[in-house]
């Protein structure tokens, strides 16, 4: 249980910048998730905190004490590995007691603590099994028990659920979170699965190309992304081209004047408009907008009815590809490709970003 402060952390592989000026502040007891596509630097950051990589510059503080120069075996941060890393030649009990023996904890106390932690991860009956007798999910519980039994100041988890099948992943996700809450242990969690990140975390930190894009609560990450990358990576999003002419601005696809929303933005900056698929409504034919709405005319490309909802794919006259996810409408489902449709959204659901991969939020 400790706060973690990382400041100005840099890591280079030759000329490649793996981590660029990372600044993170993690409150004690919180569940902090590093989210990003593969190669974004999230695992490098986690392994640098663990001491398996060495930073080129910057500091890592746990409870105010710097740990960036300590060897990995003296950092006192627990780690759960993607491939479990359960010692195959040791029983469950010996795996879990490994760290305690390393710390010269008396035998009686080891027995008690190992027993307790195995109950916590619901493996009490498996103490004398060998790893190869356990399923993947059980092995990862051993990995968790082994990491938390030493009562580390910080718990690191490197995609711990990615090798499990979908159903088990969801079950274990809830259990990990329950255990983390009960122990109140500061946790840094790495994943590329955004649903996992949003469901488990107190704070989600989105990384891309070695740079932190945004670190906020899950709701903020989703509702108020601070740049275009976050808007595109977390959840699905449509990006529509915006035409600006002096102070006037409108969607290139037609159907919406957005001058008011961009009134304060300097002229000449190129902008795109982001609309989440689930905020769009779809109607047949071309219809005009209400004042609080926008209405974008388009041609239907494809509609797929998947039961609970329908996915409508259309192309605007400006060439934007638009996807909507909406409650099934028999009239829309029955349309032939090429039919005229209108995508409709509330103005309050529109977000504007500077164009470019990581363009910032402008309105």
């Amino acid at each position, binding site marked *: 249980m400790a706060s973690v402060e990382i400041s100005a952390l840099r890591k280079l592989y030759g000329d490649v910048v793996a981590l660029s000026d990372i600044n993170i502040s993690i409150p004690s007891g919180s569940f902090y998730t590093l989210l990003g596509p593969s190669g974004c630097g999230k695992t490098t950051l986690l392994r640098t905190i*663990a*001491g*398996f990589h*060495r930073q*080129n510059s910057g500091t890592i503080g746990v409870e105010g004490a710097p740990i960036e*120069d*300590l*060897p*990995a*075996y*003296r*950092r*006192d*941060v*627990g*780690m759960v*590995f*993607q*491939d479990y*890393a359960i*010692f*195959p*030649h040791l029983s469950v009990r010996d795996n879990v007691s*490994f*760290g305690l023996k*390393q*710390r010269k904890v008396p035998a009686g106390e080891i027995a008690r603590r190992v027993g307790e932690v195995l109950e916590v991860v619901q493996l009490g009956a498996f103490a004398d099994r060998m790893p190869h007798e356990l399923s993947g999910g059980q092995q990862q519980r051993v*990995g968790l028990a*082994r*990491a938390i039994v*030493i009562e580390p100041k910080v718990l690191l988890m490197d995609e711990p659920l990615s090798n499990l099948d979908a159903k088990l992943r969801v079950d274990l996700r809830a259990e990990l979170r329950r255990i983390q809450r009960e122990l109140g242990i500061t946790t840094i969690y790495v994943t590329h699965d955004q649903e996992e990140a949003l469901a488990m975390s107190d704070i989600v930190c989105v990384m891309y190309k070695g740079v932190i894009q945004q670190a906020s609560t899950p709701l903020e990450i989703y509702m108020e992304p601070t740049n275009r990358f976050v808007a595109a990576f977390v959840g699905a999003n449509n990006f529509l081209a915006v035409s600006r002419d002096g102070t006037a601005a409108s969607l290139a696809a037609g159907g919406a004047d957005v001058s008011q929303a961009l009134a304060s933005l300097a002229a000449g900056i190129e902008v795109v408009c982001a609309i989440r698929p689930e905020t769009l409504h779809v109607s047949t034919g071309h219809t005009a907008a209400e004042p609080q709405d926008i209405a974008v005319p388009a041609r239907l490309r494809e509609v797929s009815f998947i039961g609970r909802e329908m996915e409508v794919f259309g192309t605007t006259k400006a060439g934007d590809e638009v996807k909507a996810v909406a409650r099934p409408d028999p009239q829309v489902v029955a349309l032939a490709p090429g039919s005229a449709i209108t995508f409709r959204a509330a103005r309050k659901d529109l977000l504007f970003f500077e164009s470019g991969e990581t363009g910032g939020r402008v309105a």
Partner: protein
Amino acid sequence: MSRLRLRFEFWSVVTAMVLVVLAVLLILPILRVLMLSFVDADTGGFTLGNYVEAFTRNYYLNGFKNTLFVGVLGTLGACLLGIPLAYFNARFHIWGRAWISTLAILVLVAPPFIGAYAWIMMLGSNGFITNFFASLGISTPTIYGAHGIILVFTLKFFPFVFLMTQTALNAVSKSFEDAAENLGCTPWQRFRKITLPLVFPAISTGAIICFVLSIADFGTPAILGRGFRTLSTIAFAAYRSELGGLPTMAVTISIIMMAISMLALVAQRRILAKRRYASSLTNLPVKARLTGWRNTGVHVFCHGVVLVAMLPTLVVIYTSFLQTNGPVFTGGFGFESYRRILHDAPQAITNSFLFSLAAVVLITAFSALISYVIVRRENAASGAIDFLMMVPYLVPGVVMAIGFVTTFRSGSFDLVGTTGLLILIYFIRRLPYGVRSTTSSLRQIKPSLEEAAVNLGAPPLKAFLTVTVPLIVPGLIVGSLMSFITAINELSSTLIIYDSGTITMPVKIYLAVLDGEFGLAAALSTVLLLCTGVCVYAVFRLADNRDSAFV
């Protein structure tokens, strides 16, 4: 980075220590040999005269030609036996396949010089086959000379080509052969145009091993040569005659031997560089069932080859139980030869075990450390160590021994004593066997296991000992057994270094053969074969792939 690197310092120390050991025990003796070859024996000054002499005097030139002659033909013979054997075993149902590969492996690990003198007992001037045909009034060709050496090399080294080619054949996707057939190839065209080129890298690797071992072999030409001299026997003789002075001619010949091996290896690598085939093994090769005379012929060939190759070993074991009186076989069976080794050569037996076991203990410890450095730490130093692990395969025993003696012992200066020298030379020459086996074992261990141990608070050495070592134990044991087998059978370098108190079994056998004491030699050889056989059995039980553990 200005800050001191604290992490992994343990492994940096290990890397440095390994480099120092290799520099002293491997590089230094070889450099010493190289330097001595440019020294004038009389004046002590620099000269190219040794090389001029080696390439102008007929005595040396003939040795050079003879070495290449028996080396190339021996290798060719090994390929002619090994490739068909591999093809038949990989593509057809052969009754007793495990038996065939077991015998091939036994041939591989049996002491090399045993073959030579067993053939003398069969086809030598007083051999029992010679005598049998003589009693029928037929005179058989003599075993002595080039053709005898080529025969022994062929029968001794074909298992390398066989086992390597067989492994490669089992990894050729059946789709390639199906496609060739579909495009109109006859079976023979298919083999020649598709299968053979695909397994060529493996064949050439097997062949190059045969060639390098043939060049380096001392026992066979020494026993069967009778005036037919190869570079290894010339270097040994030169070393013996130059004792007291500088062994400049011996080292010059040694350098030429090494150069031949290295040139052959470089040439093979050059050829191979253009032939790297990626292949996904989705469609496993299928074994066909032959019928009729083809089936009979293939079986006769496969079993015939391994049985003939095993013949020397069987003859040796049989001979060891014949009753003797001194060097004369008196007829009937008995344990006289064994009584004699207990009486005449107990020291050779204890020395052999003592030296080999001591070397193996060192090899085991270093194998574990070196393979960790090679596999887990990718930097220039570990790359250099990986490369240096190939060198002992290429340096003939005679060369290494002359390097050792001239570096660590000259005149009254004797750094480690003869016992120490023998243990160290076994160590450095057989270390690659241990490292290779341990390395392949370690590559299968996920690095995250060691990281987990470190993360839980174990310092690098502790993590290595408690997590890594227990997991690579099978590889370590197989490597140790392989190095033990090859160390206890070592002849050529021992012959140069040993003195009266440090005689070993192979040396004793060699001397007994030269004295015509075949009974004594046979009994000692049987003891060696027994040790070897026990180790082979242990490797079979422990190795993942028993065939490829030996090549």
